[in-house]
């Protein structure tokens, strides 16, 4: 746990420093360095959260929780050059906790439909949302490397460092996660439903085919 001291003395051009330097300074209690890390990675972390959640409502809260937790645990960061996947890993865990809580709540109150997916292509809402729901049910040890690699596009080597396991283990976990998601297969139905709905709407409104 790190307690931050206020920054004194002449201002440095932190934005010119690489992540490793910033992490080292943040680990020493430099809040300005942590702020720079936030400014550098918050957008990406927000994107990672939004990709899974598919909605905007809780984004601020999750990004806030992610960076607060990151500040408190920055000493545990294994590799200073892997800040981004490390932050995304924290974000994934926090998002998962929220989704699990939400699922429990909605199972009791099904008439509360707070889930409002957003996607640039409405036809894509179904499969992505179903995939997101399926991911909630996957164990964290499989889900995190799979999401870092398949959704966030991180290299397998970087995922291995972030997760603290060997490259072979990461490959095995990603493959296992993919197998479980394939066997779930709920989004195939959703794709068909979404496509059908789109076609129906186009026909009804007389839109161009």
């Amino acid at each position, binding site marked *: 746990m790190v307690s931050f001291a206020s920054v004194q003395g002449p201002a440095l051009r932190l934005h010119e420093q690489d992540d490793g330097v910033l992490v080292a300074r943040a680990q020493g209690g430099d809040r300005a360095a942590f702020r720079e890390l936030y400014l550098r990675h918050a957008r990406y972390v927000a994107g990672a959260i939004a990709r899974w959640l598919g909605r905007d409502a809780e984004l601020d809260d999750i*990004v806030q929780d992610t960076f607060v937790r990151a500040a408190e645990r920055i000493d545990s960061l294994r590799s200073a050059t892997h800040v981004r996947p490390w932050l995304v890993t924290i974000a994934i865990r926090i998002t998962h906790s929220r989704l699990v809580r939400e699922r429990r709540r909605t199972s009791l109150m099904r008439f509360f439909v707070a889930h409002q997916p957003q996607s640039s292509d409405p036809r894509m809402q179904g499969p992505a949302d179903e995939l*997101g729901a399926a991911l909630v049910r996957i164990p964290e040890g499989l889900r995190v490397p799979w999401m870092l690699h398949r959704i966030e596009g991180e290299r397998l080597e970087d995922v291995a460092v972030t997760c603290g396991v060997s490259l072979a283990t990461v490959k095995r976990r990603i493959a296992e996660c993919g197998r479980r998601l394939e066997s779930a297969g709920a989004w195939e139905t959703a*794709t068909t439903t979404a496509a059908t709905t789109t076609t129906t709407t186009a026909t009804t409104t007389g839109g161009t085919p």
Partner: protein
Amino acid sequence: MIDEAVRAMAEREAAWDPLRERRVLARVEAELDRRGARRRVGRWVPAAMVAVAAILVAVLAWPRGEVASGQAILGGLASAVEPLPAVEVGSLPAIPAMPAGAIALGDGSIATLHDGARIELRVQTPDETRIAQSLGRVHYEVRPGLPRTFVVEADDVRVIVVGTAFWVTHDPDAVRVTVEHGRVRVQRDGDDAAVIAELGAGDELRVGTAPEVTPAVRPARPIAKLRTKPVAEGPSVDELLARADDARAHSDLAAAAAALRQVVEQHRDDPRAYGSAFQLGKIERSRGRHAAAARAFTGAAERSPAGALTEDARAEAAISWFDGGLYTEAREAGEDYLSRHPEGAHVARVQRMLQRLP
């Protein structure tokens, strides 16, 4: 099929803009401060308990005629280490200026001192808490819901609070008030006690400690005047903002821009015109009207040079001039941004833009 789902998920983007980024950053830092204050207070509790026990023993052993002074000492010490309910006493003796640390006030509020801050608790009664801040930066987390006034005095500037969290930074020539949540009223001390501004979450105000408000904060107008000002002809600001929100919800950016432009042009004196100008800039940029966006951002910055959005507005203006192909204005605005905000959040972005200028 899973590949299609993966692709769909990977293509999702967050609606994340600089303003939102800064807002969440402020929340992150406030939360870290709050947790840090708790830890610091927590570390002192065992020692304080021992000290309180020792004083209690001393008080009990003291002759009865001296008990009154013992209570005064106890009250002062306890209020410095641990929240207590507002006590049924008159004004407590003033606690001497404190050089550092977190101070839990008797009403449950916490003042966390930074940068060599010094404060003095002048009044603490069930009806009023009054603190004089003579130096440095202090974060106040005020316990809400109590029927008392909470006032921070920094030179001749008063910050009056009812349940909120905010910063007061006392520089040699100015006092800066930054509100995290809730509302505070800032007023000038004196016979007329002129209200300078009422601030909400995310607002920041810099007030010169000279007799006059510095030009940088002149847009913050006396509340009484703002509230009694006759409504301009045509729709009210509330109606126009509602119209803009509704238009944006329906992706009608042209209508949203028109409503916001009306706020900016026809309600110049309304404090919401500042934020509306900034929003107008964002919408115009979304519409690809970069020059119009740049003008809107510039207008926002000029309207409130020390406003919470102004740094963002200056950077966005420079980028928008560039995107609109108006390179002379882009260079001027970019250099202006760098000179005013050498450590600003957009320095790298503006520098990249300047490097790309023909």
